[in-house]
Structure formats: C-alpha cells, structure tokens
C-alpha cells in the first residue's frame, strides 16, 4: 500500500467520522468545528486527486470564511437545547421520509453502478510541472465562460438580496461622518475673543 493510499484512508475515515459527529454532538459549537474538520479532510482528498487549486480554494472559502461566520453566529446565539429537542416524535415520520428520499437519490446518482473503471477511464497522471490552476482557468474562461458569468451574477444577486432583506434604517440613530469630522476647520471650533483684562474690584 503506497503512502497515498494510507493518506486517503486516514483522511477519508476522518471525514466520515467528523461528518457523523456534526449531526450527533450536542454542543452546536462543536458541531460547527467538526464541520470545519470535514471540509478540511475533503480538501485533502481533493489534493490527492491532483486538484490542488480546488482543494486550496475549498479551504480558503469554506474553512477560512464561511465557517468563521457560521461559528460567529452560533456563538452569539443562546441556543436552548431543551427547546430544540421538543417535538422529536412528532417530526420523526416526516424526518425519516426525507432522509429515505435523500439516501435513495444519492444512491441513484453516485451509487456503485455509475462508477468503476469500466464506466470512467482511469485519469492519467500528470507530470510534476503540470499547472492545475492554469488548466482550470483555460477551461473556465473559454468553454464555460457564460455559465461562469451567470454564476457570478447569481452570487451578486444573492449578496444584494441578503443585504436588502436585513438592512433597516432605524429612526434617530446617531453616527459620525468621518469626512465631515476631518474637514472641520479651526474657525468652526474655536473663537478667539479679544477683550480687555478684567479689573480687580
């Protein structure tokens, strides 16, 4: 067994275990941290598949930015565990149905019937100087330029919508305008008054 295989099994096991922990641990912060570990191990698996650009971007975007905000929100919320566990029996049938549907769908899409060396040829190994980033960029900005741009616009719309939905202007909030503060001049703040000295009585 080569080093790569050992690494694969280590990180695959880590990924499966931490993904299970995400839904089984009670503390929401720990769940979020296990999700981080899941992302991290999947990034390592991508790295083993020679997709180093995607692996690093996964770490950069999901681990470095998205999950930080997640943790932030979870830390700020005062989650009441008793309230969360209420109604478990009531929602159980519905939950089981959804879970079964999801499992069926996943098996249909990525089941063993669709994979194997007879279905997809073994990917060729690239030389050490193969530039994954360049290859991806070449495809992304030529063949797939329109889907790529549409995805970008969709993301922009989502950002604008999220800000528009959550932004509210409260009446009477006071905030400073730094541009006014720094453009103030002496005459607006200080007035020197010339007067004769007061006489002692």
């Amino acid at each position, binding site marked *: 067994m080569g080093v790569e295989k050992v690494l694969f099994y280590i990180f695959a096991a880590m990924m499966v275990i931490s993904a299970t922990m995400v839904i089984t641990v009670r503390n929401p912060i720990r769940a979020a*941290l296990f999700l981080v570990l899941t992302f991290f191990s999947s990034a390592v698996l991508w790295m083993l598949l020679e997709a180093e650009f995607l692996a690093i971007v996964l770490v950069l975007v999901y681990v*470095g*930015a998205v999950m*930080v*905000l997640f*943790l932030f929100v979870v*830390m*700020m919320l005062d989650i009441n565990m008793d309230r969360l566990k209420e109604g478990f029996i009531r929602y159980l049938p519905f939950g089981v149905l959804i879970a079964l549907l999801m499992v069926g769908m996943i098996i249909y899409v990525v089941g063993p019937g669709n994979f194997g060396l007879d279905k997809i040829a073994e990917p060729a190994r690239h030389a050490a100087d193969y530039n*994954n980033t360049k290859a991806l960029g070449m495809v992304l900005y030529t063949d797939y330029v329109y889907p790529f741009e549409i995805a970008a616009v969709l993301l922009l719309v989502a950002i604008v919508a999220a800000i528009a939905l959550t932004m509210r202007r409260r009446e009477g909030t006071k905030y400073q305008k730094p541009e006014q503060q720094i453009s103030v001049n002496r005459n607006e703040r200080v007035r020197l008054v010339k007067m004769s000295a007061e006489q002692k009585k």
Partner: protein
Amino acid sequence: MFDWFFNFINWLVAIYESWPLGVQITFMTLVKIVALMAPLMVCVAYLTFAERKIIGYMQSRLGPNRVGPRGWLQPIADAVKLMFKEIIIPTGSNKYLFLISPILSIAPALAVWAVIPFNDGMVLADINAGLLYVLAVTSLGVYGVIIAGWASNSKYALLGAMRIGAQIVAYEIAMGFALVGVLMAAGSLNLGEIVKGQSGSIFHWYWLPLLPLFLIYFISGVAETNRAPFDVAEGESEIVAGFHVEYSGMAFAVFFLAEYANMILIAALAAIMFLGGWLSPFQGLPEAVFAVPVLGAVLGGGIHWLLIKMSFFLFCFLWFRATFPRYRYDQIMRLGWKVFIPITIIWLLVLGLMILGNVPPWWSAA
C-alpha cells in the same frame, strides 16, 4: 589531522545513502523544516527584545538591560519563566477546546513558511499555487483566536474574540484583493516567479505600479496580526487582554509566538511581493561591479537583501505601535470595508488597463 572528522562525515553519508529513497526524502524534508523553524523561533524571541528596546528608546527609556550583557538574554529568561509557569484552566471552560486553540493558532502561522522563497530556489515547497496557499492557510489562524475566546468562558475573552473575528474577516478581503493585483502583475501564483517578475532595477519592483495595493497590503497586514493601532482584540485598557486573558504559562506563550511569527510572515510577504524579495536594489549596475570578490556578493541579490527588507517592515510594525493611538472599533470597520476595498477594486481596473497597454518598464508586448 582532521581525518577522523572527514571519516565521520563519510560514515554519516554512507548511512544516509543506504536508506530507501522515500526515507531519504522524508529525512531531508525534516532537516529543512528544522533549518527553517529554528532560526524563525530565534527571530521571534529577539523580535520581542527588539520591540521592547526600540519602543523604549522611542519613549526615552532604556528598555530591558539587566539580563545578560545589555539585556541580550532577556528573551531567554522570558521563555524559561513562561515554561515553568502553571497553565491554569478556568472552571466552566471547555477544556479540550481551551487547550487546542493555541495549537490551532500557531500551526497555520508556521505552515505558511513552507512556500516562502528566501533565495532563487531556496524554498521548502515550490508549489504553483503558492500565493493561494498563503491566503488559505493564514485565513485558518482566526480559528485559534475565536475558539480561545469562546472556550475560556470569560466575557472579556469572548468580546475580544468577536472583535478579532470581524476584523480579520474584513481585512482579509482587502488583503486578498491586493494579492490579486500582485498575481495579475506577475502572471503567476508562484512566489518565486513573482520575485523573478520584478527583476530589473528598484523601479521594476511592484511597489511602484502597485503603490496603493502595497500600502493597503501592509496596513491590512498590521490589522490581521492585531498589532497597534488595530489591537482592539487585545485592547489592554478596554478588555484586559482580550481573547487570551485566561491563558497562562506556555499556552499564553504559544499565542505570543504565533502573533510574532505572523508579523515576520507579513514582513516577508510584503518584501517578496512588493520589494523584490531577494533581488538587490543595485541590479542594473555594470556587470564588472558584481565581479569584485566581496563587494559583488554583497551588492548582488541574495538572502541578505530579503532579511534587510523584512527588518525594515518589522521596524515599521514597532514604529506604528509606539506612534499611533488605538483605532476605535467602528472606524476600523469603516476603514476596511468603505475605504480599502473600493480603492483596491479601482486599482485592479487601472492595473488591468496598464497591463493591456503594455506600460513600460513593467510590462512589454513580448
């Protein structure tokens, strides 16, 4: 006379060559890691000493001068003191997370050094996506801080963690855009290629065409490392010591090491991406000058120029701390989101036009 010595070396080499190739590679990589980390740790120790001395002189004090000649052994004494102190775990804290967060803080700070080139080819891992790796790994450092703040079960620590989380996320965007400028200019994500793209003379270095991005990168770097004037996360006068208020002994020292290793890293990256890394500022002088035995080696490119440039940036870090009052929190956010990000976006457009127009001397049609 020295025969026994050469025999000994030959014996060691023979042992090394008898190992299988995989073991040889692993061994050499480990040796390189040690050769990189040991000087780095010494740098961190003496950076704390330099900080206390320089800020001392700026404030008309002497700084530490009791331990060893002129105080030179002060960092060693500090390290020994911290090692022998007890690590107190607060009641009600989350023990595992409390102990794991210093590790999460220092691991990325050290892992980034793998891709930093010190000289032509003198780099631990020469990977194509070096710049992206730097961005990804440095963005992991925030976890140590956030988890430390939460696991301490202390209101000051949590407040510090909240402040730092928002600050790091905000400044990372400006920093990322500044790096986009660098990779557009160099046409490569490999840090060694980026340095080579700047060869020519002092005016070929990217500080000139990317001047706004250079300034924004360095200021964001100061904010990312939580140094004054952006040190609201620690803010001694407001929230005691911020996220590491509950830490003592070696656990605290590890946070401290991570902060200073990050400072040195920002200095190294700024030197590599904007001041030409190991390139000499005297490049472009006649060839005869570089042929002179000692003078040529000093004036020619090499690791010493990178170290000089890094020292300059590190001095700026200390200088800022002695000079500026702490920013107010809302103004930090305003500076990050409303000033830096628009400037970087505009400069990226300007840069794109400059590259398209083949503006000499940085870009040519060839």
